[in-house]
């Protein structure tokens, strides 16, 4: 544990947790002065190859309001077979099965290296995974064909026992019955009429006789298969049927006249999908996968009318309050999302179209349920095809990298309270002693539901130190947090993962340097960014930026070393040095800037930002730039216009895009065909190197990034130019000289200017 960096890394690997502060200020007042809140990024089901799950039930604290899980931090009296809860100090008896424990014979959960441990528990019947495809048929023939192929392909990726269902929609919504021979049968719904879950179930003939409802669960279970079997069937049984059915899918037959958009009933289709699952498989892992090629144009949830002459809403319209369908549509999808979340199902949205598809309105469906959101130009692109395929990727043990119906319960020691969480989750409204009144993100609860998650799904959880200044914490005592995640593993087992972590307390007045040194600026940047993005969803963009700026200035004031009113004297310690730069790029990022982004794109970016782990999040905030040249091995370079040189090939990874940029000279060489000449094979290798590296990223990332290969002066070079710090612009170009970098035609401030201002403001005695 040489450095905090290593400590942090180790903790992250073991527990999937990164705190903004790794030494905690011991009083409420001090904590608020730290500017960056005490918070953590938690990856609940982080893949742990070295963590074999244990096959028994966790031992719980017997206090009803606590129910913390026995963990290495608990004090254990091996003689009396008692253990003391480290959260509520309740003394508990070990269960009979633990009769044999002793200092040398400890159960796994008491060993320090098992601060994170996973239990497999037997609870309730095991239900197969459910995949319900909701497919838009208002697509171009080519697109539809590609989509059909992808869907057919996906059947082979599903576990044989998984249940699949198919809903198609266009002007109407069709729920396909999969169990019939000889004739394909579907239930059709009008695309303009919202139906209650009850109506939907009645119309699909899913209503059970009232009797069985009263008889309760035991009887329902045997009845379920026949009832739902018409629409949801095990893959192995209807593999061929469904393949044929998908093959026969036709484009929506209703004529679309000139100047109109096709009528697309996305809102109703989703509503029916939700209602179908709600009625048949509540609280079971299920994915509703929506594939849509355009905006909903009718019925509840419509985003734009079918007149092509009225364009779909832009940020400008929204600011002017000119998006007439937005509020209603958003409300519709929110209601659906909440229902879906309540049932433990999730909704994926795969939207492929050149224009917007209404992700802004529909985003909550994915955001609240942990579903995926994928945006592409067409279903007939490798971006979609591979991304979709990757949904069904399998982990090291041959299991899907997805989990369902997770219930995250957070427990804290009494000096801490829980302020909220930001991520793909919904509140379970579990009030308790450790819930703070101040909310950050989704607050007011100590439990959240995450309907779907994968090993990289990461939540930001914010805490509040409630210990009063005048009640010092005993030296050497530690604050503890326990995360209990119950979820349905993709193998359909129920599992519980328990992570218990502890950090030292420190008095900020006397031990500020400890706290400072234990600052995790990366985690802090991401946590602050999440807060900012979360705010941006509901507040005006400029307000959020101002808030961010203020926070940054306050942080610099607090932790910078400077003489008052002397900007040049300003210094930040190493643990804070990168933070302002992150903030600079965050301010420029599409997560906060809507200029040049459509509302859909903003929603898309924010969606991913709110669920990716720290590393990916940082890439999103500040893209990575690698340079390839004859001057040496590939190296990361500054994300700065000065890095753009004629004899370099640049590889930029923004998470959403992989840009390969050939410098001017390189591009000319390539045009001249040197790479094809044997004597310039090294040039060929140089050209190939970034491609290979890019490919590697493309292979692993979900969703697959947009791959852009461009060169100096190419139109697509804008992707690069818009990201780099505009240190050279048309304004200062000549002053800087031409030999290095490429000028960016922008009025944006550069990092240098930003830093100058920051210093000035930080040292100013005025604020």
């Amino acid at each position: 544990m040489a450095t905090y960096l290593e400590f942090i890394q180790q903790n992250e690997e073991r527990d999937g947790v990164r705190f903004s502060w790794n030494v905690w200020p011991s009083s409420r007042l001090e904590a608020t002065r730290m500017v960056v809140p005490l918070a953590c990024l938690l990856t609940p089901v982080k893949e742990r190859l070295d963590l074999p799950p244990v096959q028994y039930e966790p031992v719980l604290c017997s206090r009803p309001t606590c129910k913390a899980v026995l963990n290495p931090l608990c004090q254990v009296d091996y003689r009396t077979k008692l253990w003391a809860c480290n959260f509520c100090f309740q003394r508990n008896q070990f269960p009979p099965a633990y009769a044999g424990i002793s200092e040398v014979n400890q159960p796994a959960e008491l060993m320090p290296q098992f601060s994170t441990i996973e239990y497999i528990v037997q609870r309730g019947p095991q239900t197969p995974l459910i995949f319900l495809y909701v497919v838009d048929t208002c697509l171009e023939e080519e697109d539809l064909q590609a989509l059909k192929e992808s869907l057919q392909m996906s059947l082979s990726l599903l576990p044989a026992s998984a249940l699949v269902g198919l809903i198609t929609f266009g002007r109407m919504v069709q729920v396909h019955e999969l169990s019939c021979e000889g004739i394909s049968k579907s239930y059709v719904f009008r695309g303009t009429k919202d139906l209650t879950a009850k109506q939907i179930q009645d119309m699909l003939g899913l209503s059970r006789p009232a009797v069985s409802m009263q008889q309760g669960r035991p009887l329902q279970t045997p009845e379920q298969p026949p009832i739902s079997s018409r629409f949801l069937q095990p893959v192995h049984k209807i593999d061929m049927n469904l393949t044929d059915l998908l093959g026969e899918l036709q484009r929506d037959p209703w004529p679309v006249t000139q100047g109109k958009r096709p009528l697309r009933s996305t809102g109703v289709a989703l509503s029916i999908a939700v209602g179908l699952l709600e009625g048949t498989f509540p609280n079971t892992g299920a994915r509703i996968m929506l594939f849509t090629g355009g905006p909903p144009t009718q019925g509840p949830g419509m985003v734009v009318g079918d007149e092509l002459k009225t364009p779909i809403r832009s940020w400008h319209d929204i600011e002017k309050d000119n998006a007439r369908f937005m509020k209603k549509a958003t409300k519709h999808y929110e209601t659906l999302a909440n229902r879906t979340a309540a049932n433990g199902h999730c909704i994926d949205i795969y939207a492929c179209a050149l224009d917007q598809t209404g992700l802004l309105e529909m985003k909550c469906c994915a955001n609240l349920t942990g579903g995926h959101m994928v945006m592409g130009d067409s279903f007939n692109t490798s971006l979609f095809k591979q991304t979709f395929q990757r949904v069904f990727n399998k982990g090291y043990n041959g299991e899907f990298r997805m989990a369902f119906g997770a219930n995250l319960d957070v427990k804290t020691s009494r000096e801490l309270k829980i302020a909220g969480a930001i991520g793909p989750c919904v509140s379970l409204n579990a009030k308790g002693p450790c819930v703070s009144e101040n909310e950050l993100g989704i607050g007011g609860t100590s439990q959240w539901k995450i309907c779907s998650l994968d090993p990289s799904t990461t939540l930001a959880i914010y805490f509040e130190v409630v210990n009063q200044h005048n009640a010092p914490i005993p030296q050497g005592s530690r604050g503890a947090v326990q995360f209990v995640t119950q979820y349905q593993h993709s193998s359909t087992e129920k599992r519980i993962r328990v992570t218990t972590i502890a950090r030292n307390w420190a008095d900020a007045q006397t031990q500020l340097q400890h706290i400072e040194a234990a600052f995790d600026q990366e985690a802090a940047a991401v946590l602050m960014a999440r807060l900012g993005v979360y705010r941006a969803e509901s507040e005006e963009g400029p307000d959020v930026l101002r808030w961010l700026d203020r926070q940054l200035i306050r942080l610099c004031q607090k932790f910078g070393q400077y003489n008052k009113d002397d900007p040049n004297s300003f210094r930040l310690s190493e643990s804070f040095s990168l933070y302002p730069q992150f903030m600079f790029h965050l301010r420029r990022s599409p997560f906060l800037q809507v200029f040049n982004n459509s509302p859909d794109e903003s929603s898309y970016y924010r969606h991913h930002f709110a669920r990716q782990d720290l590393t990916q999040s940082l890439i999103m905030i500040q893209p990575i730039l690698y340079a390839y040249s004859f001057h040496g091995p590939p190296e990361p370079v500054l994300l700065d216009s000065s890095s753009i040189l004629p004899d370099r090939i640049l590889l930029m990874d923004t998470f959403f895009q992989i840009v390969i940029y050939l410098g001017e000279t390189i591009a000319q060489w390539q045009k001249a065909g040197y790479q094809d000449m044997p004597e310039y094979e090294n040039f060929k290798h140089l050209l190939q190197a970034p491609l290979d590296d890019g490919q590697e990223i493309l292979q692993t990332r979900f969703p697959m990034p947009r791959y852009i290969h461009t060169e100096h002066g190419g139109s697509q070079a804008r992707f690069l130019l818009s990201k780099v710090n505009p240190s050279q612009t048309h304004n200062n170009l000549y002053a800087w000289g031409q030999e290095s970098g490429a000028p960016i035609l922008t009025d944006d401030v550069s990092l240098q200017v930003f830093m100058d201002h920051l210093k000035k403001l930080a040292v100013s005695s005025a604020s």
Partner: protein
Amino acid sequence: MSVNQQAHTGPPYGQPQPGYQGYQQPAYGGQSLPGVPRSQYGAYNGPMPEYQQPVPPQGYFPSLGFPSKGSPVSFNSDSSSLAPNFIGSLRAPPTSGAPPPASGASHPSGHLAYSQFEHGDVQNGIPASAAPMQRPPASQPFLPGSGSTPVSQPSAFQQYGPPPASVQQLSNHMAGMTIGTATASAPPPAGLGYGPPTSVPPVSGSFSPPGSGLYTPYSATQGPPPTSVPQGLPVAQPPFPGQTVSTQRLPTQVPGFAPPPPSTGVGPSSYPPTTGAPRPPAMPGPPLPGQTLAGPPSSQPNHVTSPPPPSALAGLHPGPPMSGLHGPPPPTHPPQPGYQMQQNGSFGQVRGPQPNYGGAYPGTPNYGSPPGPPPPPKRLDPDSIPSPIQVIEDDRSNRGSEPFVTGARGQVPPLVTTNFLVKDQGNASPRYIRCTSYNIPCTSDMAKQSQVPLAAVIKPLATLPPEETLPYLVDHGESGPVRCNRCKAYMCPFMQFIEGGRRFQCCFCSCVTEVPPHYFQHLDHTGKRVDFYDRPELSLGSYEFLATVDYCKNNKFPSPPAFIFMIDVSYNAVKSGLVRLICEELKSLLDYLPREGNMEESAIRVGFVTYNKVLHFYNVKSSLAQPQMMVVSDVADMFVPLLDGFLVNVNESRTVITSLLDQIPEMFADTRETETVFAPVIQAGLEALKAAECAGKLFIFHTSLPIAEAPGKLKNRDDRKLINTDKEKTLFQPQTSFYNNLAKDCVAQGCCVDLFLFPNQYLDVATLGVVPYQTGGSIYKYAYFQLETDQDRFLNDLRRDVQKEVGFDAVMRVRTSTGIRATDFFGAFYMSNTTDVEMAGLDCDKTITVEFKHDDKLSEDSGALLQCALLYTSCAGQRRLRIHNLSLNCCTQLADLYRNCETDTLINYLAKYAYRGVLSSPVKTVRDALINQCAQILACYRKNCASPSSAGQLILPECMKLLPVYLNCVLKSDVLQPGPEVTTDDRAYIRQLVTSMDVAETNVFFYPRLLPLTKADVDSDSLPAAIRNSEERLSKGDIYLLENGLNIFVWVGVSVQQGLIQNLFGVSSFGQISNTLSALPVLENPFSKKVRSIVDMLQGQRSRYMKLIIVKQEDKLEMLFKHFLVEDKSLSGGASYVDFLCHMHKEIRQLLS
């Protein structure tokens, strides 16, 4: 009706009968007495053959005579009155029955003669015979003509005996009578009486030489009488075809008695006129008076009464009793002169007779006093009252041979029961349009006075026999048809070209319109365009125009229509095997969709839907490997789930369709769903057509009351307790207005709905039928559908319904000459304004009845014109206009009106009017209104047209002499007077059915055709002669067939020869005949073949496949059968023909007094 109407008749007669009985044969006595008539009749039946003979006019005479005897009242129907009179007498005859025998004995020869006549025309014969006896009394006149009388008497007797049989004849006679009616009968008598003898002989002569020969004689005889009569009538008569006819008949009658009865009406009267002149003289003075008697007789024709009088007379002297009736008569008679004039046409003769009668009358007068007695006298002899069978036969023989050429204005076409060819020479064929009268009163006052409704029954797309050519299709290119600028009437043969052909004057509104340059043509010296014969629209009554885009919805040429088959797959439908049956049938039936002209394949597209509580649409696009089913559960808000692939071309999608039809029964084989929806089904079809932007037809196969939660959900509201209350009308009204609105939407889209119902219980036809009805669709109902027994009927109906010619999205407008206007419409359609009849679909069987009212004066010179223009989309999607033109005469004399009426059409109108009335008024009110209107019609005739005669005489216009019998049938129909076994659904079903019927259908529906199968000539193609619908006409040794357009009954008498049973049913005895047979077994013997060919032929004539029911005499099913013997008293309280006639007479007398 001297007969004193019903009430009286029965008893009174009965009483008298006793007396008569003596005369009459026992049988008669029996009959007359108790009113048991039937049984008695039955007995008579036995005699049938004989009867026929008796039937002859003679009967009438006798009746006359009788009347005097028993029922003084003689009816004097008008000329026909004679017949009627005769009728009266006829009845009397029964009484006299005894006499007949006697007479028969005594006057065998005479009888024979008569009988012959009778057969032929002479119904009178009988009366005569009787008459003689009786007459003496009644007919004092006769006495005078004693010589004749005797003759007549004999005949009369015969008649009596024969009555039953004769009845038919009588009816015939009656017909004749009716025609010439008053006169006829009267005359005859007269003739008889006076010239009688002579005449009589003629009769015989006539026999051999059917009417005509006789006629002449008659005329001759008549001639005299006419004198007075002649005046107006004669002349007029000749012109009228009808009259002529009558005349002819007369002859026949004459022979019989001739004069009176048969001719009675018609012949005599009309003829008389002509000839009449002469007669009058002879008869005149005296006659008239006597006529009174005669009148009775003569009047008898119409007037049933006369008979009574006669009896009165006869008995008469005892007669007084009859008197009631008589009473009046006498007085009237006196006035005869006047009468003669009026009755004339026919009357001429009548008068003649009357005079004679007069003589008799005198006696009658006495009767008159006796009035009271009349009633007692007894009932009318059924044979003496106008017989539909006779009328039909006469018309058939007189008019069936020559083509009906439509060139002349105001021609009365042959009856619907007559087979005839039509040659279109400027007026529409009667197959397209029939009118209640072909001579319209010039003023509304006249029209009101007569109370004869002016109506046309239009069947715009009627099927023509193969010998006639379809309307030519005229294509005027882009400019479209030439029309009047003001009233928009279409170019037709009556448009007048002026100014050398540069302009034409509209024949409807007189507006002058420029002839478009491309249409210009020079006129020849007669003012006709030289291309007159090249252009159908200038030379024909019916033709079609190709419509331009201006005539199309949304200014777009229509797409070919579509057929959508919508099948109920609820538990009942599946279990009964119906679903499988339909699916199997559709597989082959789809090859027979209607095609236009010589197109290779039908342009019609098809679609399929099944439903129970939810709807299942099927995608049968040809590119699919297997059909796709789409379930729509949102029945509250129906929509069509697919567009492409729902409506397909049969040949292109054949394999998919076949696969679908194979699978439907399997898919629902295990269904447990019993609830159904209905309105959403129609909505679905409607939406489908909307989406496809075409018109079309839905074929819905439905089994139960739609009680599932959905729009248009119905509840069971069947409540028999409402019958005969003010709320009865609610049974005919729809439960909810929902369906009316739906129908409106359907019409707007051109969505026609045909509904096939298979109920096992009440399913509210009144409500379910709203949409089919208002969209011009049809309803077919198969109660308690069973595969084995009903499948043939259903499949045949379905096949025909699918294959028949049909037009879509139709709008019909009837334009008329200034002066009259179409004011009311009856039929299956929807009207959004007061002039346009809109029909989503219109097939070749659908008929619209249009009523006209005056709004100004018409002129005799120009007549009145009708133009019916039907805009529709053909089955290939071509927009067309079908035009029918008809020119009618106008008159200032009521007599002309009455002479040119058509009773069948009138009944068609009255039935539709009444059937609509039940929606808003209590049934009793409707019935009373009907009776009242008819009484007014007849009273008006009596008052203004018939020759003066005793008020006790019932005088009917020749053209309307069947009005009472037919009207009675209407009144007794299930809708207006339901029996206990008739369900509410049946009534609603019948009500809607009748509303779209044409004249031929209403004719047979109300007065079913009863054929003695055992009389069929195995070797010829012809049908056996029909007999009257009365139980007394049935012989227990025979097998009969009765058809009314919906059902065929085969009635088997208990003592039918075993051989026949074996031949027909393949079983050895009566007891082994199964009455669950739905078809006759196919046996290889001439009798079986013949019967089956008859059945097949009848089936072929009707638009619906009739249900075959085997009825064994004295079996429980017989009750059902008896319901259709419409001349008898019905179990539900309907009056017998005789009773009703008497009642009618009473009503008329009340109106007159």
